[in-house]
């Protein structure tokens, strides 16, 4: 029987040499005349083990990692094809604690299947949700999503079902589903992993959204920095169209829905939903004032659902297993699971999907294993470049929307970036302002001007110029930006700045300026 060997095609695996590993394995198979095929799967999300090669034996998958191309001949000598012992052998992949303790609902197939095999997708439960949705009235689909408690995974946490209901009830000859795949936050890669590792789940989620709201056209707006995701999504949409999942009659329902993949052009602010809509329309990515809400007047002035990749990719499992199944995970008003992305200076970095409610310390110390450098953890930035820096003192904060807000932070897209004790928090605060200045769309003054003034003020503090006065000024500026900005870019940049000032005041009191010798 043909043995299947899995070598990921995920961009992170490729960045660590998966392509040369796959070539080396292909060479060994040919040279030894073996009966084996290589499957290019998505990533399991354990990046310290990438490239992670898996061999499927009697339904079990034995892992080897991290594999370098030069290890490949030795792996074959050691009998990798029969699950042979080797220092890189990890045993059965499913039994690795990092994977075993997760609750994978949205990422159930990611890393397991061939991302572009519709057969694989269906064999692992794919399309069950869409089939169910096709048989239901639109309002019932919306109710199911509302009842699941699913909230926007892009960061704002708005209930997905309520957004859908608004669009369903809105009157328009044309409605749109827009998938926000403009994942620009540092420390996040969940959207990228789904698009590269299980693109059909996003397509299925968007199709369900279309049927539920009466929208007939969907756009996936992703980043030019994600060429592998664009390629995988584009190919998957083509396959889905061929199979009748997309097109004039979704799964033979007689109802139309199709998807187009669009690429951004390197503007972070286009991750903000109204800027994204302008960009899709072919305009500058300038933020729009709300109201009108995109659900009433969105893309080209039509009622539009705009959801994050993970929100949409979580819908198929809800439609397959029911609202109650999904709602039973989580805590408080944060229901279901969240794909944590543990990144930066961390020993076991990767994607960890789990129910809401783990403490930050548990995530960083136990799951992440502390820093990669082995030094003490100084700070953790949660929620991307607009998220707050958390000190160890706040490591008991449970991971959910409300708990983080109560500590003047946000979970955002659930990216967690770990810093060791060499981090200079004044420098990080300055970077937050600098980034805002580079990426500001320029429409509102607090963001456009405030960010530049913020950089200057941080520099003055660093140079010991009237530090006390400038600290007050910086805090005041943050206040203006927070309450005066039109969108989250200017409005949330104060989070990293103020949290750094509050929790790490010692970094904002540099040595006084030494007077030049006469």
């Amino acid at each position, binding site marked *: 029987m043909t043995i299947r060997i899995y070598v990921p095609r995920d*961009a*992170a695996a*490729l*960045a*660590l040499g998966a392509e040369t590993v796959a070539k080396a394995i292909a060479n060994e198979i040919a040279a030894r005349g073996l009966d084996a095929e290589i499957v290019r799967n998505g990533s399991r999300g354990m*990046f*310290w083990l*990438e490239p992670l090669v898996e061999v499927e034996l009697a339904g079990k998958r034995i892992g080897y990692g991290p594999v370098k191309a030069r290890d490949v001949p030795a792996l074959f000598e050691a009998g990798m094809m029969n699950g042979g012992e080797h220092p890189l052998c990890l045993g059965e992949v499913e039994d690795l604690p990092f994977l075993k303790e997760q609750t994978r609902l949205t990422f159930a197939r990611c890393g397991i299947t061939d991302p572009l095999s519709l057969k694989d997708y269906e064999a692992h439960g794919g399309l069950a949700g869409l089939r169910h949705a096709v048989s239901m009235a639109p309002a019932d689909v919306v109710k199911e999503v509302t009842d699941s408690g699913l909230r926007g995974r892009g960061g704002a946490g708005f209930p997905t079902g309520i957004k859908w209901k608004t669009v369903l009830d809105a009157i328009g000859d044309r409605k749109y589903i827009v998938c926000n795949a403009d*994942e*620009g936050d*540092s*420390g*996040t*890669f969940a*959207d*990228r992993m789904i698009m590269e590792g299980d693109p059909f789940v996003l397509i299925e989620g968007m199709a369900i959204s279309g049927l539920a709201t009466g929208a007939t*056209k969907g756009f996936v707006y992703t980043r*030019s*920095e*994600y*060429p*592998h995701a664009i390629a995988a999504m584009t190919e998957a949409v083509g396959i889905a169209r061929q199979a009748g999942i997309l097109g004039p009659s979704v799964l033979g329902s007689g109802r139309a829905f199709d998807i*187009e993949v*669009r*690429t*951004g*052009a*390197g*503007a*972070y602010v286009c991750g903000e939903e109204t800027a994204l809509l302008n960009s*899709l*329309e*072919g*305009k*500058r*990515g*300038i933020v729009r004032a709300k109201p009108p809400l995109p659900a009433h007047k969105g893309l*080209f002035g039509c009622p539009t659902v705009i959801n994050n990749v993970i929100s949409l990719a979580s819908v198929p499992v809800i439609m397959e297993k029911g609202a109650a199944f999904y709602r039973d995970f989580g805590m408080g008003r944060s229901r279901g699971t969240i794909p944590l*992305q*543990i*990144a*930066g*200076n*961390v020993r076991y*970095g990767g*994607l960890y999907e789990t129910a809401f409610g783990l403490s930050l310390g548990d995530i960083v110390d136990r799951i992440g294993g502390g820093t*990669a450098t082995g030094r003490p953890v100084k700070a953790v930035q949660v929620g991307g*470049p607009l998220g707050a820096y958390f000190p160890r003192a706040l490591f008991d904060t449970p991971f959910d929307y409300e708990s983080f807000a109560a500590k003047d932070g946000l979970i955002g897209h659930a*990216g967690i*970036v*770990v*810093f*060791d004790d060499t*981090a200079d928090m004044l420098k*990080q605060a300055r*970077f937050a302002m600098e*980034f805002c200045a*580079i*990426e500001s*769309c320029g429409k509102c003054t607090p963001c456009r001007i405030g960010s530049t003034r913020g950089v200057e003020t941080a520099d003055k503090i660093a140079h010991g110029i009237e530090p006390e006065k400038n600290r007050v000024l910086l805090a005041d500026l943050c206040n203006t930006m927070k309450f005066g900005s039109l969108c989250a870019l200017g409005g949330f940049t104060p989070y990293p700045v103020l949290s750094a000032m509050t929790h790490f005041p010692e970094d904002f009191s540099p040595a006084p300026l030494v007077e030049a010798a006469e």
Partner: protein
Amino acid sequence: MTIRIAEGDIAERTRAIVADLRSLEGSLLPILHEVQEEFGYVPQEALPVIAQELNLSRAEVHGVVTFYHDYRDHPAGRHVLKLCRAEACQSMGGDALAERVKALLGIDFHQTMLDGSVTLEPVYCLGLCACAPAAMLDGEVYGRIDDAMAAELVAEARR
């Protein structure tokens, strides 16, 4: 060596691109992407053609081109090396890596080497945050870049 493209040629090729893509909803970004793919940058001469074909003002097209970081107004080097400058890469020594690469190339960000071999650009997140620091060379991604690998990347780019 800079290859000069005749103005009439630019107009003609731009018009062909617009004709291909104009039926898309909100076609301006896809058109600009394709123009940049065709010429390696978005030539000034292409703007009035696009404006006329899409019934936009020239100012509107100019506004869009200059808003987005991706569109270049002049050709890049033969290779483009993008270094991630965002927080996750900073936490793993991204700043030191950037200094090292700049020193090896002898250029700063947004600059191209005199021999036209490499353009160095910052990028804010490649989504490789759990294998930082990361870089992209001509669309190929690289993670966990140490000093030796930085030197290899630079050598590869300079070829």
